[in-house]
């Protein structure tokens, strides 16, 4: 799917090849443990899930085949479409905000100061789990008692119902996850920045280019391959947002933060409709595959970097 383009590199590299070799046996040995784990704990459950999406299954009695019923129900289910919309909105906000912020932080870590403590600090939030991050912000952003709103009120501003207003809730959840992940993303980008030779910047400086100008015409283009890797990983992760919603809003108010994973979970374990939940999971999987594919094509297609 996406590996076809990356495969070119190892083949064209390597000047001293001893002619075509075939390492199939060795390769099999090397991937065997991973393959077992992959097959048993990921592929098999997924195949089973896809099968269950064509059944009526309440988890405890044997599944009954019901054809496309679940998919028909899905297409007609307004809550599903709303969940899809909410999820997309979340991903857009989360990824957009996070990527821009991470990029700025990374550039600053590169151009302003390269001290380790700074990188250490921005990575700290990543050490706690999503659950903990959600809990802490739930407490900080509480409408009445949270210190966030207490501060707002003390400077004369109106309190903001961060997690209980339909307009605020998705941006707030996006922010919580940005808080946890931005340092990590920034570090990945920072690492990418370090692969850009200083000489390029020096040349730019001699030409009298400003920082902003250098950022736009040197940093961004040369960083594209790493950005694309970071984006693929973060977008896929972002689509699967669950913990934060489960802890902080339970999908509310009304349906305004009912993201897909949360709706699926609720249908599967709260309402025992595992067949329908499976069908929606298949839809989510399909969306992820398509989006990743498009992303890969887009970022690869115009990658004209160092090399």
């Amino acid at each position, binding site marked *: 799917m996406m590996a076809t383009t990356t495969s070119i590199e190892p083949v064209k590299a390597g000047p*001293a090849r001893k002619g075509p070799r075939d390492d199939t046996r060795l390769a099999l040995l090397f991937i065997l443990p991973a393959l077992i784990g992959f097959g048993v704990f990921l592929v098999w459950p997924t195949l089973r899930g896809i099968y269950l999406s064509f059944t009526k299954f309440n988890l405890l009695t044997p599944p009954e085949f019901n054809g496309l019923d679940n998919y028909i129900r899905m297409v007609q289910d307004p809550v599903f479409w709303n969940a899809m919309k909410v999820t997309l909105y979340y991903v857009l906000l989360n990824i957009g905000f996070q990527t821009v912020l991470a990029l700025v932080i990374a550039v600053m870590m590169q151009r302003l100061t390269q001290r380790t403590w700074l990188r250490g600090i921005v990575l700290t939030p990543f050490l706690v789990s999503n*659950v903990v991050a959600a809990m802490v912000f739930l*407490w900080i952003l509480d409408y009445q008692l949270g210190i966030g709103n207490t501060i707002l009120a003390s400077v004369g501003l109106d309190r903001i119902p961060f997690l209980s207003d339909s307009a605020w809730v998705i941006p707030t959840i996006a922010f919580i996850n940005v808080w946890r992940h931005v340092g990590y993303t920034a570090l990945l980008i920072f690492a990418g920045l370090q692969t850009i030779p200083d000489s390029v910047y020096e040349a730019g400086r001699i030409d009298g280019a400003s920082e902003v100008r250098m950022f736009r015409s040197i940093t961004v283009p040369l960083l594209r391959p790493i950005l694309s890797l970071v984006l693929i990983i973060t977008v896929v992760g972002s689509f699967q947002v669950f913990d934060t919603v489960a802890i902080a809003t339970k999908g509310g108010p009304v349906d305004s933060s009912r993201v897909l994973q949360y709706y699926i979970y609720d249908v599967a374990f709260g309402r025992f409709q595992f067949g329908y939940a499976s069908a929606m999971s298949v839809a989510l999987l399909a969306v992820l595959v398509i989006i990743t594919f498009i992303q890969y094509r887009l970022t690869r297609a115009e990658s004209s970097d160092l090399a």
Partner: protein
Amino acid sequence: MTTDTTPPVATALPTLIRREPAPPEPHRLNFGRVLAWTFMILVILVSLFPFYWMLRTALSSNNALYAGSDNLLPVQTSGGGFERVFGLQTGQEAIDAGGAGQAINFWRYLFNSVVVSTLITVGQVFFSAMAAYAFARLQWRHREKVFAFFLAGLMIPAIFTLLPNFVLIKQLGLVDTLLGIALPTMFMTPFAVFFLRQFFLGISREVEEAALMDGASKVRVFFRLILPMSVAPITTLAILTYIAAWNEYFWALMVSYTDKSRVLTVALGVFKSQTPQTGPDWSGLMAATLVAALPMLLLFMLFAKRIVNSIGFSGIK
């Protein structure tokens, strides 16, 4: 921290002494730099404030928190939250304070967490490295197709895997064991394979070819050449894996039934979901959160430099 945030002045010193790459325009303390530092200080504050707030809440008395919400310092300072976490309060005392009232066998849970996280990290990183090597360096048919398939695994929603895996763990007789918690992620994650493959692709081929010419086997090349050359990315991955394994909650909750397999996050989870009837024990909860994160924070502080510096891309293109 205040002393550290004033390098604009420091950078005015001759750049020759500095071993780090030359900072841009070192002699101008312009508006842009002030703005940039303001921004960074803001980032630092936002990153760290929640940790302070955890500590402040943990050190407050739970029953007083609701009435003293606007105090920046602990209200009615009390070690009660931590005492409840460590099971030092009796059940009734803890419940009176709005807590969970369950004894916490802290050292046992800490030990379990360490075992589970270590098992997962060692297994996952090693097996993923092997697979990544096969995908990056070995020549075999359908290599790219299999790799693409692996990558697609990145996108599988967790909901698919939860129940079948639980049933499987049960059939293997591993419910309520540490191995049962570790097993599903001990072999690989698509991310780990993807991540390491990118690095292996970047390792210079000449070195490898030279070793092969000298008669070394590919297995030997992998263990003696590739692995040592990839210490940095492998450390990075190991740390990321360890953090993720340490923080895993839901799966561990499913598999664990008694103290013998209870890990820290699950043990401290009793603070999280109290009965729907009572409000959360915020001070106990925040104390628990800090305690759960403390080993990670300590580890991080000890190795911060190494960890942070190891996150790098030697040659992703």
